[in-house]
Structure formats: structure tokens, C-alpha cells
């Protein structure tokens, strides 16, 4: 039901024609109502004195139009969107009869990217690239394992949402864009994305410790990592709130006419926010160069996606916004990379799209969540598909790296993470006065002092 009413198939000309033949008096009445509504919207409600006799004139138009309906319907039966817009001054819905097809259906194809479908050379990756990809995913994991520990030691406070398990999403995606040129925005589970974008582990850890050397000078904490230079537009703590921002970032790309695109990440939970739907519609309407990427780890806090979303195949929501939709296995860095590349290409041509990356978080929602809502064996099952282990195996199987070399990488990222902790420890807390910094653009803003 939902699919057939949500969007009429533009290609289904037969249904369209059948409907046009059924043009009825009801339609004429409905149009009269519409005309009245238009008159109201014009600020001319019934009975209100007005010098302007526009509403009457409009009614006349409508009456004529209703008589003419059938031929006009045939003329416009193909695809509404190709119609020239009416003269802006002409408030009447003239020229278009109401289209109600006698039958409607929907057939849509989506891009799919299952796991184990792509080889590294298909994607143009050399051995060195693979090593970097491996290193990057492993860095995220080791970094966050330490975060957990630092939280337990009370070096980190506030909310701490770990990304462990989802590393293929960040790394695979960032490998598909021009880093430093294309733009990225994400939600609050943002450490992995930051590290994938080359943000320094030192500065990331320092932020978590609330130090002035942190990526947001100790003002943002875990949920609010920013890096203007790398074009990382944040870390956003309010579910769904980053999605309209993503549309806006893409709008600026288009407005300036640069060649850059925006990757806009959000969780499955965010799809239930009005903000997502409004932003997706805007993106579709204005043809914004954005890839809306739903990082579907199957849960919003303790709620499984099936308990939260009437249509839980996220990619299908693309249909409502007249954009291509795709779905990829987010536990395979190659599948992610291929999917994001394809969708980035569309974005560069001014075609927004929605891409669902199916993944899984191994930890609780936040560090204080014991995650009792998982089914028995669910976590273990997901861990068997682990993206890092998958790449590890791939490189060994394909003789692209030795076990020793990969172990060495692990040692290196562990050391990097240790160094980051040391850096964070040694850094200073912000000055007390810093509380007033960066509230406004002026240095001398007259704050209300207590």
C-alpha cells in the first residue's frame, strides 16, 4: 500500500490515460475548492471586502478549465515534472486537471553492493593503498579500545559512543572522496570518521580529555569533533540535526559552482526525524550534490530498526525524494568503497542520492549501555563478518601482505594510540577565560557578566 500511494509511477502512461478518461465532476468540485484555497492563500478570504475581484476571475477560469479538462489532461499525461512552470503571477492551478490514475504501481531499481563482491584491483587499489586502509581501520579500533579504558579511568567524561565494528564505513567512504576538498558531516558517533579523515589521534584524544589542544579546543567533547581544514563539518549530537546541515553544505557547493560534493552521514535512528525527510526532499528538489549516507547499525539506542521504522529498508526512502537509492554491506570495506564511489559520481553530476550502509556496533550505544537488547549470539554472528578481519584475511589469501607485516601495523597503531594518550595527559586544560571564547565573532562582545 505504502509503495503504490507514495509515488505514482511517472512511466506508467497507460494508467495515466485511463485516469484521464475518468475525469469527473468530483474533480471539478475539488478544483473549485483548490481555487478557493488559493484565494484564501492570497489573503482574500470569503466575504472580506476587496477592491480586487481576482477570486471571481479565478473561479471563472476554473469553470472553463473543468470543461476543458479532458483534452488538457491528455496533453499533460506524461510527466508532470517536464511541464513549464506557470506564470508566477497566475495563482490559479489553470491548465492542469487533477491527475488520478485509475491504477498505479511502482517499480524501482536500487543499487546493491553485497559483501565479497569486489577485489582491490577492481577499485584501483594498490598494495600500499590496502595497507593504508587496513592501518586506518585498525587505528580506529585500537584508539577506541583505549577510549573505553580512559573513560573507566575517568580521564574521559560525558557521553562516549564507540564506533567499534563500523570502521569499514568511515574508511571505505573517505577513500572514495577527495579528502580536503569534498565535505563530510556526521553524527555524534564520530571518532572513527575523524580518524578516517586523517585527524590526528593526538588532538582527538586531547578533545576527549577536554584539553585545549583538542580538535574542538575542549569545547565539544566526544560528540562534537570538527576540523575545518580537512572539511570535517562535525560531529553532531542531536539525532537528525546534521542532515539539513549536510544539505546546506551541498547547497553551498552548488551555489559556488565548485566541483565538490558532501557526504552526509547519519544513523538509522535519524531517519525517523522530520529533519531527515525535510532535508532529503530539499536535496531532491534542488538537485544538491550530496550523498545521504545512512549508517545503519540496526539500532537506535536499544531500539531495533524494525521496531522504529515503518519502512525499515532505508534505501527505499529514496523513492519519496526522487533520487537513486542504494544499499551496501558496511562490513566490507570494498563494498562500501564501491558504493560510495558510485554515489559520489552521481553527486558530482548534481544528482543527490540515498545510500544505506548496513553495519553493526559491537559496543553498547554508549559506554553506560550494557546492550541487553541483543538477541542471543547476535553480536558474535556479526563479529564473524568483521571488516578488519575480512581485510586481514583477504590480504593474506591474495598474498598482498605477510602476517608479520600486518602484526607490525597493529603494533604501530597501538603505539600511536598510546602516544595520543600521553599527548592528551600532558596537554593543558583550557584557560578559565576560554569559556567566553568563540561564543561570538567579536573578541569584545559585551557578555552579561554575573
Amino acid at each position, binding site marked *: 500500500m505504502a509503495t503504490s500511494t507514495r509515488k505514482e509511477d511517472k512511466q506508467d502512461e497507460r494508467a495515466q490515460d485511463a485516469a484521464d478518461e475518468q475525469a469527473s465532476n468530483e474533480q471539478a468540485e475539488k478544483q473549485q475548492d483548490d481555487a478557493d484555497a488559493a484565494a484564501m492563500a492570497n489573503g482574500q478570504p470569503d466575504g472580506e471586502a476587496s477592491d480586487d475581484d481576482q477570486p471571481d476571475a479565478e473561479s471563472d477560469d476554473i469553470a472553463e478549465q473543468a470543461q476543458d479538462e479532458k483534452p488538457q489532461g491528455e496533453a499533460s499525461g506524461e510527466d508532470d515534472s517536464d511541464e513549464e512552470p506557470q506564470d508566477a503571477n497566475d495563482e490559479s492551478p489553470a491548465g492542469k486537471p487533477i491527475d488520478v490514475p485509475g491504477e498505479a504501481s511502482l517499480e524501482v531499481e536500487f543499487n546493491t553492493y553485497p559483501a565479497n563482491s569486489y577485489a582491490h584491483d577492481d577499485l584501483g587499489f594498490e598494495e600500499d593503498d590496502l595497507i593504508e586502509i587496513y592501518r586506518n581501520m585498525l587505528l580506529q579500533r585500537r584508539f577506541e579500545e583505549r577510549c573505553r579504558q580512559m573513560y573507566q579511568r575517568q580521564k574521559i567524561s560525558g*557521553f562516549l559512543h564507540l564506533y567499534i565494528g563500523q570502521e569499514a564505513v568511515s574508511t571505505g567512504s573517505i577513500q572514495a572522496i577527495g579528502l580536503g576538498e569534498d565535505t563530510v558531516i556526521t553524527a555524534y558517533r564520530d571518532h572513527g570518521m575523524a580518524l578516517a579523515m586523517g585527524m590526528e589521534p593526538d588532538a582527538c584524544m586531547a578533545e576527549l580529555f577536554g584539553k585545549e589542544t583538542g580538535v574542538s579546543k575542549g569545547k565539544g567533547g566526544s560528540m562534537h569533533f570538527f576540523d575545518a581544514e580537512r572539511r570535517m563539518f562535525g560531529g553532531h549530537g542531536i539525532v537528525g540535526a546534521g542532515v539539513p546541515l549536510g544539505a546546506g553544505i551541498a547547497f553551498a557547493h552548488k551555489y559556488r559552482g565548485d566541483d565538490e560534493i558532501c557526504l552526509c552521514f547519519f544513523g538509522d535512528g535519524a531517519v525517523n*526525524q*522530520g529533519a531527515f525527510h525535510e532535508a532529503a526532499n530539499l536535496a531532491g528538489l534542488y538537485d544538491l550534490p550530496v550523498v545521504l549516507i545512512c549508517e545503519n547499525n540496526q539500532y537506535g539506542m536499544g*531500539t531495533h530498526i524494525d521496531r*522504529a521504522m515503518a519502512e525499515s529498508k532505508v534505501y527505499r526512502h529514496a523513492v519519496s525524494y526522487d533520487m537513486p537509492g542504494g544499499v551496501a554491506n558496511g562490513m566490507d570495506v570494498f563494498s562500501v568503497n564501491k558504493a560510495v564511489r558510485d554515489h559520489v559520481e552521481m553527486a558530482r553530476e548534481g544528482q543527490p542520492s540515498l545510500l544505506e550502509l548496513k553495519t553493526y556496533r559491537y559496543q553498547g550505544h554508549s559506554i553506560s549501555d550494557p546492550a541487553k537488547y541483543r538477541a542471543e549470539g547476535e553480536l558474535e554472528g556479526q563479529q564473524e563478518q568483521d571488516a578488519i578481519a575480512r581485510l586481514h584475511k583477504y590480504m593474506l589469501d591474495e598474498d598482498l601482505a605477510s602476517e608479520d607485516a600486518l602484526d607490525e601495523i597493529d603494533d604501530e597503531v597501538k603505539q600511536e594510540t598510546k602516544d595520543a594518550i600521553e599527548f592528551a595527559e600532558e596537554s593543558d586544560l583550557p584557560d578559565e577565560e576560554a569559556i567566553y571564547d568563540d561564543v561570538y565573532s567579536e573578541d569584545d562582545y559585551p557578555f552579561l557578566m554575573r
Partner: protein
Amino acid sequence: MPELQLREAIRAAMTEEMERDEDIFLMGEEVAEYNGAYKVSKGMLDQFGPERIIDTPISENGFAGLGLGAAMNGLRPIIEFMTFNFSFVAFDQVVNNAPNIRYMSGGQFKLPIVFRGPNGAAGQLAATHSNSTESLYSNFPGLKVVSPSNPDDAKGLLKTAIRNDDPVIFLESELMYGLKGEVSDEDDYTIPMGAARVAREGEDVTILAHSKSYHVAMEAAEALDEEGYDAEVIDPRTIKPLDLETIARSVKKTNRLVVVDESNPFASFASEVTHQIQDEAFDFLDAPIARVTAPDTPAPYAPNLMDEYMPSAEEIVAEAKRVMYVE
């Protein structure tokens, strides 16, 4: 009298009311199967079933509005915001529908609904997760705003709020959910809205503080006591309607007022009280009214900055002394 945590007292109020009236339901994120993000609704799904304890998607605008529609159509919803920071997503429903529909319909539709959840800062959660909303919501005529500081008041006031036929914003506190206190076991215990509580009697200075700040104010009063100053501490309990009479009576006795409110200061509850008291008791004031609030900045993350951000007992003591013209 039994000792309950704040979360248990809130749960007890909801449970008793739901047992009494089938039109009441509880809806919000993670309220049912997860037993509440802060375990306030723990066990309620088991008791009342999924028709009355309802998990929602992360769609505040949607479920706040749904609650209002249900209220217009005869039910008495309790809508939980996981925190009031997220009520901003539902701002339109809460401030433009909830308070106005009774008025605009000439009284034909009532909206008996409670929007409840934690308000204010709760540690190092940074700016988006540390908003205090009392002054915002109390600015809209048609809304009532309640903000208790202890389990007993929470229980009595929440029961009253649920029975009230108007939309009530019921502001709790993440950091106080575990706070224990004796709660009346009186059958059908309610506390009227608009009645402040004189928590500590004193002669030298009046300190007004609600919710978390109340506890900081009590700490300050103890510290002042040790220095030989006798502070009167008043908990307004409801922000709107405000029990101006009790506050003014106290000020007429002590001639000095310090308002403590962890909100940002500009156009705050503290500003409002300051205006109302100077209007009501100007001739009795021996010093300008002082206030202790968060600074005029967003909430930071860094631990030292967050300490600086929150009102402290030391600041309250200092302000109390300033208005008493000592030291």
C-alpha cells in the same frame, strides 16, 4: 514514610495515576522495553502492557504532536523527552500548539498532557545536551512549568500535573534521578502547583533555588550558618504559576534576595523573579537582588570549564555576603 529515589517517586506517581485512570498512557523513546533511558519507567511495561507504555522512534516532533492530538481527543498522555534538549525538535508542538489550542478554540478543546524528562546540564555533555528550558517554556502563556527538587515534591506534583487539564512541562534532572528522600505514603498524595516550599527558615538573607540548584543553595546555607549568617532557603517548586507571595513574604523579612538558577542568565527565570520582587517588595530591599546562574555562554565540555559554568555553593555564599554587605 518510605525512602525513594527521585526516579522511583516519579514512577510511583505515574503508576498510581495510570492505575486510577485508563486514559493515561506513557510514550517516549526507550520508555518501554529498555525500561527508560534513565530507568524512570522501569517495570511499567510489564505492569501496563505495550498499549499504554509505548516506545517511539526518535521522532520528538511527531510524538509530541501525537500526544497533543490524543489529548484533544480525550486521552491524558504523559510524553517523555529523553532529555529536554530534544524537546527543541518538537518546539512547534510544545510552544505553538500545546499552549494555544484551548485559547484559540474558545475553550472547546482541553489539552491534559504532561511533557516530562530531565532538564539542564548533567555533567560534561557539551552545549547541545546541557540546555535549561524553564525560562523558555514559561514564556508561553498556556503552559505550566514544574521543576521539583526532591522525590516527595516530584511525586505530589507529578500526580497533580497529570490530573491537570492543561499542558504541563515537568522538568526533572538526570543527576538527581538517584537522589533519595522520604516520600509521603499518604493515600492519593498530591501537592498543588504554585506553592513554594520554605525549606530552611532564616532571618538574614533569602535564597531562592529550584531543582538541582536547590541542593547547592542548601549547601551554601550551611556554609553561611557556620559563619554565623542565617539564610532562608525557598524552593519555588513550580516556575509557573509562581508563588510570588511566599517569596515576597520572605524578602520582606530578610530584606535580601539571591536567586540561584543554573540557566543562562539573559532573560532567565532569575531575571523574572528579580523583576517581580522589585515590583512587589522594592521598599523592603536593602540591597540589589543578586543572582547566581550559568555564565552567558553555551555549556563547554572541558571539566574545569564545566565546573566554572555551574553555580557553586561558594558563589552563592559570596553573593549572599555581598547583599548582606559583609566581608
